[in-house]
């Protein structure tokens, strides 16, 4: 089976800090990483390949720098990588991103299962996976926590819901978005790192994917950012220090007195 994985390069959020004076993001020293949820998607794709055979192709839409994310995916076991990049894609919202990705995937044709992470940690929308499936006219299942059965033509998966999980069967080709419960991603192997170094990344642009550029990038995006602002910082309140018994009594008196608890 030809297995695809859509990934995104995001700022490494564990390092994100706020400048306390300006209230803005500190960008220095924040490295770009593979979206953490996509690591589970890559791992599941590689496991699927190991189980039933085939190849894994990772695909991303992004600036030239996103190539490093693709190479890392290869070091984690993917075979091929595709970078969909064009000035015409800049400023894309989730709709326009899905359009570019799905247009690129249409040129790949013979795919089986497409894996995505459930969402990206920078935008947090969880919209691109299902939208890509719609544009490719294939079914999708979001929030998958386990693949129970798989064949060349169908798969059975567990879909995580707020109150438990649903068991769903879908034909292949299809798209699934995965949650972190699905697996524990492996660390890149030495062989993988060597392969990543040598890999030739396939470059696609608006023209090679036959994209209608009125539907790409900022101009093709239905949503537009009107303004960006820093939220008002929550001000700290009262500080209690001293003997546990004393401060506990003070706190409980305060909470009961103001009716916060009863």
């Amino acid at each position, binding site marked *: 089976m030809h297995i695809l994985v859509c990934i995104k390069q995001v700022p490494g959020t564990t390092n994100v800090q706020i400048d306390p004076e300006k209230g803005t993001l500190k960008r220095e020293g924040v490295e770009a990483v593979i979206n953490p949820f996509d690591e589970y998607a890559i791992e599941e794709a590689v496991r699927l390949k190991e189980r039933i055979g085939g190849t894994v192709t990772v695909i991303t839409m992004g600036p030239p720098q996103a190539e490093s994310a693709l190479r890392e995916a290869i070091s984690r076991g993917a075979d091929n990588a595709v970078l969909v990049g064009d000035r015409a894609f800049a400023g894309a*919202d989730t709709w326009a991103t899905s359009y570019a990705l799905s247009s690129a995937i249409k040129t790949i044709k013979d795919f089986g299962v497409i894996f995505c992470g459930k969402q990206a940690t920078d935008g947090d929308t969880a919209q691109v996976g299902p939208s890509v499936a719609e544009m490719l006219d294939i079914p999708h299942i979001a929030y998958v926590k386990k693949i129970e059965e798989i064949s060349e033509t169908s798969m059975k998966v567990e879909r995580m819901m707020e109150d438990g999980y649903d068991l769903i069967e879908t034909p292949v080709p299809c798209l699934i978005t995965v949650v972190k419960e699905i697996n524990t991603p492996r660390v890149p192997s030495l062989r993988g790192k060597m392969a990543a170094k040598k890999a030739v990344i396939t470059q696609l642009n608006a023209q090679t994917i036959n994209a209608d550029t009125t539907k790409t990038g900022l101009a093709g995006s239905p949503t537009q950012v009107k303004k960006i602002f820093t939220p008002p910082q929550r001000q700290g309140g009262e500080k209690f220090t001293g003997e546990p018994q004393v401060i506990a009594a003070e706190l409980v008196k305060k909470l009961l007195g103001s009716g916060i608890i009863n």
Partner: protein
Amino acid sequence: MANKINVLADKCVGCGLCANNCPFGAISMQERPDHPRKFKLAVIDANKCTFCGACIEACKTFKAIEMHKEEVTSGVDKSLYRGVWVYAEQRHGEISSVVYELLNQGSVLAKALQVPLSAVLIGSNITDKAQDLIDRGADKVYVYDDPVFIEFQDDPYSCILTSLIEKEKPEIILMGATNIGRSFASRVAAKIYTGLTADCTALDIDLETRNLLQTRPAFGGNIMATILTPRHRPQMATVRHKVFKEAKVEKGRKGEVIVNKVDASKIISRTKFLGFIKDASASVNISDADIIVSGGRGLGNPEGFKLIAELAELLGGAVGASRAAVDSNWIPYSHQVGQTGRTVAPKVYIACGISGQIQHMVGMSSSDTIIAINKDKECPMMQMATYSMEGDLYEIIPEIIKEIKKTRCSI
């Protein structure tokens, strides 16, 4: 593609404010050896810029950045789209509480626009729930009641909602940012080519354009963005639990129930629903709790959650946890608060041994009262809490428990 953004070299003083404020890291400061005062120059990477305007705001003093945004006109005649809709999500026949919250805000928007507020109810054997939606403020309820909709699957649900949108043409659709809502709203928006804004925390109307002003956190909540869907209709938005207050119940309120016939042969579902397995631990729904006592890395060991649970039980609240505690396998994932867990907004949030990583903060910072218990008084959680208690949580919590019991006995 006629959007343009330029740095005016003669006005740029190289202060770097724009680069610091750029949420997309698109601006770098380059050396200018030929400048008489050796000022640096801001350079904008066209591949990363989204024309959001944050740099222009930052450069108010020097006015060294110029932006030209192309006005794009689309083929959609916006005047054909009228009315505010709320998708009345149900699971196993029960309407989700987020629906009542959306009806509350939806009625504010509908009043501002002077249009009716409608709800869309899709399911099996659910027609009798329509009056609940009217009692909560819906003027009209569109019902699709058929066994084909008994369990949620993306294909049939997105198919029926899309066809209703195309027929009735609402201008706004609000949906819960739940697993169901997020999944099939994306499909619907993709199909009809319109904007969908996830996880909005504020919704307003620009009366002149009838645009929905959708405010949401970006970059893990460090920055807020106001998003528009200026050229497409309907404007679709998802909202998490507890962002808005529930609409009040007005028993027997009058409204119109439109039960649409379903031609099941036209509803295609490529996927097949095989079963539902309930998660017993998911009965702890921290999203709905009024009081949450949360434990983090500072507990030091899984036993610490016994103390947390004791306090929570005493207060009639739920137990939450930071990602660090969940990753250490001290407590199941269903308790996790934060960016990769649940968003909560209880009346009281008690953070015990949680330092306050930004990913945790975005999941709980809209709680009414925050109490932090921590040894480190400098940590972010202690800095932002309404009440911060400095010290060992294993000494302080038992004292709080003792104190509450004592006070209650004396009443």
